[in-house]
């Protein structure tokens, strides 16, 4: 009797405190477990599932309508007790993998999380157990499951980093499943702009799930992974190229478009060259931050090592630092880096050299730039002319493979000159270009010789043919003369032998 009164009071209290479930169902399990001060029951009442009208029996089985414990928890009524292992996620998936069922609860969000999870790294690293490494409850909790946007949810933007790092920052735990995976993600994240903002309570800033996705987490080496090099620009661009989302930030939102138009973007996205840099190669991934003025050459130098070395040894390194100019970016730009053409080494207005060097203000640099450009023009023109002349000789059937082979060294010098220019020293530039120019000139002379040889052969043939033809004519006349003489002799001798 007392129990009934208390139960009634509790129900009335709950009716005022919590909104009614979407499809209110009698849950006698909850009634008792709440009375028992069961934390799980208390948590359940605060979770989304209770509000959606689910009962304890939805996951645990049994009959929630019966107030008789023996009946409610009878195996005959389907009582399963506490699900364990993959049964947990299977139970969740029963609804969350079924879009139609979810719609009946009035839910319009994404479904299929279990299927996605089964294809993710968290499934495959499970080893021989063949079970999911992570069950749904490991991240979302078991009873008090809340919306991801709810700050109290462990998967909410401000808490999800801690949740993921509870495993991923634990080397001894991670060693069991993926020893090659670093465990410093959280430490790096806290140094990043994203991490700092997150710590300050900005829930819009990127967290683990924003880049890696919530359920479809795959190794970066997989082409379908959201953090695969080919997909990273899109992943970052989801926020960074959305002006609406980035409102309130002082960052531009043109990076993705600029990157697509750049030499790096075309190599990565159009030609799918995985050696080309993606966003994270310059900005870092977990420790993502814009490189500062002094460190740009180190970032670019990761790939363009020789260029960076030469630049660091050059006078420009100290001058740029003094002037507060970003190193590589000053001439090449950042996201929209274009192929380095000859126009970069020019003194026309608008060229990067001309920004600082003019004949009157910085004559030494002006003259050096001008001479470097002239040398490079000479090299390229000589190589191009030699190639054209070699093509012409080849068309004539001349054997020019050797010359073409030697011209490769000149082309190599042309290529090296693009690096050597970063020393910003005429002397060092000449060390590369002068030998190439000499080879190109030799090749051009050899190509001209090959073309001349063609005509020489024809002239020689004409002379030889003329000589042989003359001999043929003379010989034919000689034979005719002999045979006439023989005929005359026969006629006089009455010889019957006919010539």
């Amino acid at each position, binding site marked *: 009797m007392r129990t009934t009164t208390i139960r009634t009071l509790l129900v009335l209290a709950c009716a005022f405190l919590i909104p009614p479930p979407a499809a209110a169902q009698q849950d006698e399990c909850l009634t008792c477990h709440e009375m028992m001060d069961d934390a799980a029951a208390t948590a359940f009442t605060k979770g989304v599932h209770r509000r959606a009208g689910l009962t304890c029996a939805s996951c645990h089985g049994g009959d929630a309508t019966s107030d008789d414990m023996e009946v409610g928890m009878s195996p005959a009524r389907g009582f399963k007790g506490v699900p364990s292992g993959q049964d947990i996620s299977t139970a969740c998936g029963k609804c969350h993998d079924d879009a139609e069922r979810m719609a009946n609860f009035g839910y319009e969000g994404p479904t299929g999380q279990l299927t996605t999870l089964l294809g993710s790294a968290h499934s495959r690293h499970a080893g021989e157990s063949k079970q999911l490494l992570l069950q749904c409850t490991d991240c979302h909790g078991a009873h008090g499951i809340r919306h991801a946007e709810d700050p109290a949810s462990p998967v909410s933007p401000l808490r999800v980093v801690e949740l993921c790092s509870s495993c991923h920052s634990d080397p001894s735990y991670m060693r069991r499943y993926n020893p090659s995976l670093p465990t410093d993600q959280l430490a790096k994240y806290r140094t990043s702009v994203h991490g700092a903002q997150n710590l300050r309570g900005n829930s819009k800033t990127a967290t683990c799930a924003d880049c890696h996705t919530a359920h479809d987490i795959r190794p970066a080496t997989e082409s379908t992974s959201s953090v695969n090099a080919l997909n990273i620009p899109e992943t970052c661009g989801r926020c960074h190229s959305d002006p609406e989302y980035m409102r309130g930030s002082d960052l531009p939102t043109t990076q993705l478009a600029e990157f697509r138009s750049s030499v790096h973007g075309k190599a990565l996205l159009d030609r799918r060259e995985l050696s080309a840099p993606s966003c994270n190669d310059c900005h870092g991934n977990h420790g993502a931050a814009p490189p500062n003025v002094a460190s740009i050459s180190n970032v670019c130098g990761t790939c363009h090592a020789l260029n960076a070395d030469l630049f660091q040894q050059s006078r420009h390194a100290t001058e740029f630092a003094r002037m507060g100019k970003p190193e590589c970016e000053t001439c090449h730009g950042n996201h929209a880096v274009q192929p380095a053409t000859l126009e970069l080494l020019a003194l026309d207005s608008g060229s990067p050299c001309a920004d600082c060097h003019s004949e009157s203000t910085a004559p030494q640099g002006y003259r050096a730039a001008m001479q470097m450009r002239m040398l490079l023009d000479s090299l390229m023109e000589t190589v191009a002319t030699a190639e054209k002349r070699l093509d012409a000789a080849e068309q004539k059937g001349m*054997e020019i493979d050797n010359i073409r082979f030697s011209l490769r060294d000149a082309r190599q010098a042309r290529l090296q000159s693009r690096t050597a220019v970063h020393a910003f020293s005429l002397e060092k530039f000449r060390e590369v270009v002068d030998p190439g120019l000499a080879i190109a000139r030799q090749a051009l002379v050899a190509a001209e010789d090959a073309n001349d040889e063609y005509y020489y*052969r024809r002239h020689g*043939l004409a002379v030889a043919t003329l000589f*042989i033809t003359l*001999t043929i004519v003379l*010989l034919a006349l000689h*034979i005719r003369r*002999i045979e006439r003489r023989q005929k005359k002799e026969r006629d006089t001798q009455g010889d019957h032998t006919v010539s």
Partner: protein
Amino acid sequence: MNTRMQGMRGWLNDRIDLDGIVAFAKHKTVPSHRHSIWYYFGGVTLFLFIIQVVSGILLLFYYRPGEDTAFESIRFLMTKVQFGWLMRSIHSWSANLMVLAAAVHMFSVYLTKAYRRPREITWVSGVLLFYLTLAFGFSGYLLPWNELAYFATKVGTDIAGSVPFVGGFVIELLRGGEQVSGATLSRFFGFHVALFPAIFTVLLGLHLIMVQKQGMSTPIGHEEEGEQRTMPFFPNFFLRDVLLWLIVLNILAVLAVFFPWELGVKADAFAPAPAGIVPEWYFLFMFQVLKLLPAHVLFLDGEVFGVLLFGSAMTLWIFIPFFDRKSQRGQRGRLFTAIGLCVIIFILFFTILGWVML
């Protein structure tokens, strides 16, 4: 001076009977009739052979057999050696013209029935010389070690390897291993510059001795036309021969300069075979027939059937004089003329078809 010449003549007379040779040459005659033109092709073949020997020796000064050196040495010869390109081009073109001249010579001899008694040995040695000429062409084709030659040799030796019972031995003998490799190149070089020339010289000597001994054959019918018309070998026939040689030399020079023999790309055993691999033109008819044969003929594999067919035909061809009884008796026989014409038409048809279907 005159006394010195006479002294020298006497010295030679004592040793080689020079006067006897001069007298023989003075009295040597060649039949003169409307088919006399065909006599000159033997001389043209000989002339081209001499060019082959001379240009081949010059090439030998620079050629270095070996997987890593053959192609490079030819390239060096063609680009760095004065007139090296001309020597190689002349060697290649004269080889092709020699095959053509030898074929014309052989078929003209066949159709005029010049093989009949007592010239059977001349015919047999001539046919063997022709087969050796083809072997020279096949072995020499590989020596520059370029892509086309490599794969053509691979196909060619594959065909030779399909001969029943002895195919495995033949392919091993030719290639010096399972695949066309540096060992094959060494063997082909040995065949081309030592073995074949040695055999060729012996056969050519025999052939020329027989020609000198028996003189030119007069076609059946012409010898019955009363007293035969003849012309002196010296100087008439000889000078006409020289005249034709000069014309051939002119043609050769034009071909060598206007259509220089390309070196192509160096052979790479691991590279895929380029499209359109075909043998030299004189093997094209055989290649085309083998290509067109069905997979199985009777109880034999198509390719084996083809190889046996050509092998048998080539063997029978050597012994033609012994089969043609009518001509042996000095009678005109239409059957063997028809067979010869059929062979010529067959070769021409499949060669042209091979070119068209390239």
